[in-house]
């Protein structure tokens, strides 16, 4: 059973990867990768109150999601969305746990509503005005592929375009030691059921037990260290415009095989 969708837009933000267009040459190895902390832009699409309350996860999601949708030249209000994250807003979670361990447990309303796993989806709705379905998932290290499968089944079964976002942020210490995600990293894809003028690539997905592809050098270190970066081999294949197949890490021995071709 192969599931087919067309990628119409891509967003990417991570250490040394400042946007999809800025990163294509790095992924093709035609320009060198230079490690640099992820720079999260201020979420200008949010009203001032929400902008003030937004944490790293929200900024990351808005940046990659809107980059993908701009490339596809679509209106975000028209799109359903799929958000996957291996752990939501790590900084906020730490602040709540720290406060709950003291005698003054009066956490703030903003802390609390930012603690839900769907915090980025909620702010996304406010920023974009989209009232469409938004699915929010977590599958620990398999979160990116869980989100990709959810998005592709939306595309195929509900015959709709959708935007899929996989975003991870760091935990501060002491949680960092238990979950050492080194930096913020996000990938977004706009997926369509039909081949349109703005189609970048066709992907055909199936489950496999084949070994997952790895990368070279520092990109491989990123891929292994951050769950959302598990999608990098697919983005590299797209950047190189080569028809072919990549296998992405998913759950234990279950992986995703993706045939990529170009119109």
């Amino acid at each position, binding site marked *: 059973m192969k599931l087919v969708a067309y990628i119409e837009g891509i967003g990417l933000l991570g250490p040394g990867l400042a946007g999809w267009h800025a990163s294509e040459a790095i992924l093709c190895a035609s320009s060198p990768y230079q490690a640099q902390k992820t720079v999260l832009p201020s979420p200008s699409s949010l009203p001032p109150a929400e902008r003030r309350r937004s944490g790293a996860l929200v900024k990351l999601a808005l940046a990659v999601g809107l980059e993908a949708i701009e490339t596809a030249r679509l209106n975000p209000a028209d799109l359903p969305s799929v958000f996957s994250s291996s752990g939501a807003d790590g900084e906020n979670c730490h602040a709540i*746990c720290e406060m709950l361990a003291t005698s003054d*447990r009066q956490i703030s309303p903003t802390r609390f509503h930012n603690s839900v796993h769907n915090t980025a989806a*909620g702010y996304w709705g*406010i920023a974009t005005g989209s*009232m469409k379905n938004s699915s929010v998932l977590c*599958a620990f290290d398999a*979160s990116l592929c869980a989100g990709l499968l959810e998005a592709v089944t939306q595309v195929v079964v509900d015959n709709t375009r959708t935007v899929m976002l996989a975003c991870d942020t760091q935990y501060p210490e002491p949680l960092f030691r238990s979950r050492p995600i080194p930096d913020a990293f996000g990938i977004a894809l706009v997926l369509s059921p039909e081949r349109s003028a703005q189609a970048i690539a066709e992907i055909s997905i199936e489950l496999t037990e084949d070994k997952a592809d790895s990368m070279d050098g520092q990109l491989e270190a990123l891929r292994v260290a951050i769950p959302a970066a598990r999608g990098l081999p697919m983005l590299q294949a797209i950047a190189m415009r080569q028809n072919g197949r990549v296998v992405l890490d998913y759950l234990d021995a279950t992986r995703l095989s993706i045939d990529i071709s170009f119109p």
Partner: protein
Amino acid sequence: MNPLWLTHYTATSSIGRGLDQTLSALQGLRSGLNPCRFDTVDLETFIGEVAGLDEVRLPSHLSEYDCRNNRLAWLGLLQDGFEQAVRDAIKKYGRHRIGVFIGTSTSGILQTELAYRRRDSETGALPDDFIYRTTHNTYSVADFVRRHFEFSGPSAAISSACSSSAKVFGSARRMMEAGLIDAAVVGGVDSLCLTTLYGFNSLELLSKEPCRPYDARRNGLSIGEAAAFALLEKSPQDEDDIMLLGIGESSDAYHMSSPHPEGLGAKIAMQDALRMANLQPSDIDYINLHGTATPSNDAAEGIAVQALFGKDTPCSSTKGATGHTLGAAGGMEAAISALALKHSLMPAGLNTKQIDPALQLDYLLENRERKIHRVLSNSFGFGGTNCSLIFGRSA
């Protein structure tokens, strides 16, 4: 959509372990809400606590998953022969052809809250016995179920706050219709923790008394905990199996913690569920409301329900019995909806004395017994996430 069958299902909450106790509590108008004595919580509120979780032991090979949420999941799986039903499905379809989609909002966060009390006084480190992946992480409960059954098909935790375990039905439907899987274990598991108790308190949304959904003087919710599971298949095992007929999912795009005041997102979700089921509002016999008993939720939902259904469709919130079980609410109320269909019981909304006159609905203050064919169940959550499910009986 092609209907899916709930060939097996189960529910465990403060009103009972398994379906028999749950049904008997509903029939006897018994609430599971009691004054909060949970952990060291010093809030004046009522909670729906599942008794005996401290004594539950996970299977030894999964002991690293030990936390309140996974204990509740395990207790839930052991009821109503559900575990055996899943094993039978594995024989039928294979481990790789069954998906796992479990809704939760806080998963095992309590474990981390407790670990933060035991940080090293010098380094600030968490204790060595703390295991993030298998307890704290949002996925841990879905992973626990997956590993217990040794599934190798698609799997995820769905975590959209209080719509989580309604939306699992949406994810499972898409996976089944896409042909990736033949069956799915779906459910919702959420357990008591300090984050939600103190969090809802900070929003001034906790009632000091047992919650009174749709009451003129409702003043907030009561938090509960629950584990509910269903096995979804493409064909029935018994002629009276309950069907899932429609799912509607929408977003408010309005505010992080307040619903759209006219219930616009809620209305879209209900309309989409009706459309998917190819039904008219008049085809729905009973509505299991989200009905959290916060002033704004019930007002917004009430307006949306009245706009779509008028004021004559019997409806109630069962959160007066179970409390608001947050990420487990969708699954818990799916099970209650299935019980309602099977046993011809439209359950009363408990604790409510005087129905809010602003909400012109046929809100049930007494149990009503009559054969019903289709039930709509609503689940809405923080971040403006909405999901409506329609269940029906074939016979």
